[in-house]
């Protein structure tokens, strides 16, 4: 038990480090650039017609305070962290006076849902099929699946989503291609609402799953073909252990641990893919929100989403790290 405690603390330390470095990068990006978001906002507000200079001055002071940009650099740094800790990103300029945290709170579940569903489907299916392909090398069906997976793997998220959109939106329009649910259905735990949520999520989930499934398949296949040559597998086959048992408990089981690590490492990339997919399909998650924020010059919103993304991904990776020892008992010794 004590060794697990050590492991837990190490992983926690890594989590804290990631959040710390990430948020620092965010702070660096926002403060080391020549653009001053306050001036930018004022410029866009005073674009049309004359403005009373005193009113502008008041606006400037208010914005400074809102954005946490008053005071020295060090004060700004502290304010930044303080606000992050309380989850206060201020109000959104484009949807004034709705607080940014509320907007993120509304969008986050959609993103999390999309991400977890498609990742689960892609990881499990990809690994399972890749494992079979690595073990039964002669099967023509699996070889064909391998070619498909190799073709899918290098394609970046945007292109894949676009292709899915074109296929199912224009060539064969059977599924809705935008929004999270039908506009005229009131949200609630009704069957109508639930089913519309599901139908609207099919294409984004499909798209995101296709993006990653190729990688899992190919990775698992090569992992399994290496494991098959390992001493303990050869020995078990020699001993006449039941083939089915070898495939599951000796081969696949040993491949799962590295694949789980792979999942933790790619989570950042999968998150990127998720928000891009959302933009393509107009899915009401963080992606659409982010683009909206950029296009309307909403500083607090963009900042808030960037910060939350870092924390969310780091937390997910931390959670996976905690599950890892269940798959690989050797971790305690290391």
């Amino acid at each position: 038990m004590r060794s697990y405690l050590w492991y837990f603390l190490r992983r926690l330390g890594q989590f804290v480090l990631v959040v710390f470095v990430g948020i620092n990068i965010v702070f660096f990006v926002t403060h080391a650039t020549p653009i001053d978001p306050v001036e930018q906002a004022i410029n866009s507000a005073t674009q049309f017609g004359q403005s009373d200079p005193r009113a502008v001055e008041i606006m400037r002071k208010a914005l400074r305070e809102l954005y946490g940009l008053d005071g020295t650099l060090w004060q700004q740094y502290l304010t930044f962290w303080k606000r992050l800790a309380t989850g206060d990103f201020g109000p959104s300029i484009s949807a004034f006076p709705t607080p940014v945290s509320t907007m993120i709170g509304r969008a986050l579940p959609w993103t999390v849902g999309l991400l977890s569903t498609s990742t689960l489907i892609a990881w499990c299916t990809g690994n399972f099929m890749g494992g079979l392909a690595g073990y039964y090398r002669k099967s023509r069906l699996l070889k064909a699946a391998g070619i498909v997976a190799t073709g899918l793997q290098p394609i970046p998220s945007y292109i894949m989503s676009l292709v899915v959109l074109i296929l199912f939106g224009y060539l064969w329009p059977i599924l809705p291609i935008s929004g999270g649910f039908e506009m005229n259905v009131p949200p609630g735990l009704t069957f109508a609402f639930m089913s519309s949520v599901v139908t609207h999520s099919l294409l984004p989930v499909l798209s995101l799953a296709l993006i990653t499934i190729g990688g899992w398949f190919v990775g698992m296949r090569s992992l399994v073909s290496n494991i098959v040559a390992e001493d303990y597998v050869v020995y078990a086959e020699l001993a006449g252990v039941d083939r089915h048992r070898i495939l599951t408990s000796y081969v696949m089981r040993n491949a799962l641990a590295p694949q789980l690590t792979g999942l933790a490492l790619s989570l950042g990339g999968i998150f990127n893919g998720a928000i891009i997919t959302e933009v393509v399909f107009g899915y009401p998650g963080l992606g659409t929100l982010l683009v909206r924020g950029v296009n309307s010059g909403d500083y607090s919103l963009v900042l808030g989403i960037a910060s939350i993304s870092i924390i969310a991904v780091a937390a997910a990776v931390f959670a996976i790290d905690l599950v890892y020892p269940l798959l690989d008992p050797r971790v305690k010794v290391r």
Partner: protein
Amino acid sequence: MDAALSVKNLRAYYVTDYYGVRREVRAVDDITLSVEKNEIYGIAGESSCGKSTFIKTVGAAIRPPLRVLGGSIKYSFLERDLYDLDERTLADIRWKQLSFIPQGSMNVLNPVRRIRESFQDFAFPHMRLSRSEFFDVVKQRLERLHLSPSILTAFPHELSGGMRQRVAIALATVCRPEFIIADEPTTALDVVVQKDVLALTLETQREIGSSMIFVTHDLTVHANISKRLGIMYAGRLIEEGPTGDLFRDPMHPYTQHLVASLPQIGDLTPKTALNGAPPNLAQPPSGCRFHPRCPLATDICRQTNPELITVVPGRRVACYAVAASLEARSLTNDK
């Protein structure tokens, strides 16, 4: 048939063909030998002489690119040649009648499964016992090997090398097989543990009465465990006989060098190494494979491969020089 195992003219090569290059590595080239019931037959030879390949072939453990090209392998408990059997019969005899003690049990146990689960995977299907009876037998065997039953709940990486080796022995012998193949089981262990493991192996073999092939390059181990010894060089068997006789009176020049290289207490003579290196089995030398390094090589050695002939009852050697000198001796004796 009296012999537990009878191998005749066995040939097994690695045949590879990739990126346009075809290669044949003649790892086992025409080997004939037999193992008696209840005896330990040792096989010695340096690295890459083909002994591991021989083991794989005799134990029905070949995988591409390894291929059996000819010869026969007959066990006493099988009616047909080993490679004439169908999958089902083969799976049936595995472990129950033919088992392995593997080399360097670093990695032969599944790292994510506990020891008792390994026993269940390997041995339980072959023994018609209830689960609890089965584990009683297992615990008995472990005790014989000086292992506490508590290791059953451990993972392989939690045990020491010596313990893992003993687990491997237990695993291989719990079904009381008729034939056991041991592939360098003591190579990865330090000398003290080695002695222990060897003693246990001997004890187990005597108790079960199985026949064994014991492969190791270490001649001192053979001195302690093998009843008869076969020396392999470059894929061929070059000498064979009772272990004691081989040590006292080695006949083949290679064996002589091997025995002479063993340090003895009180022996102060400097040791000379054989010049040259073991041959490349993809392009072996013509005739006798040892001739490039042999001080007694003559023309015929370079042209044709010497047969393994019985020079004295129980002793076989493959060397023209030995055959010639024995003929000369017998001629003078006749006089």
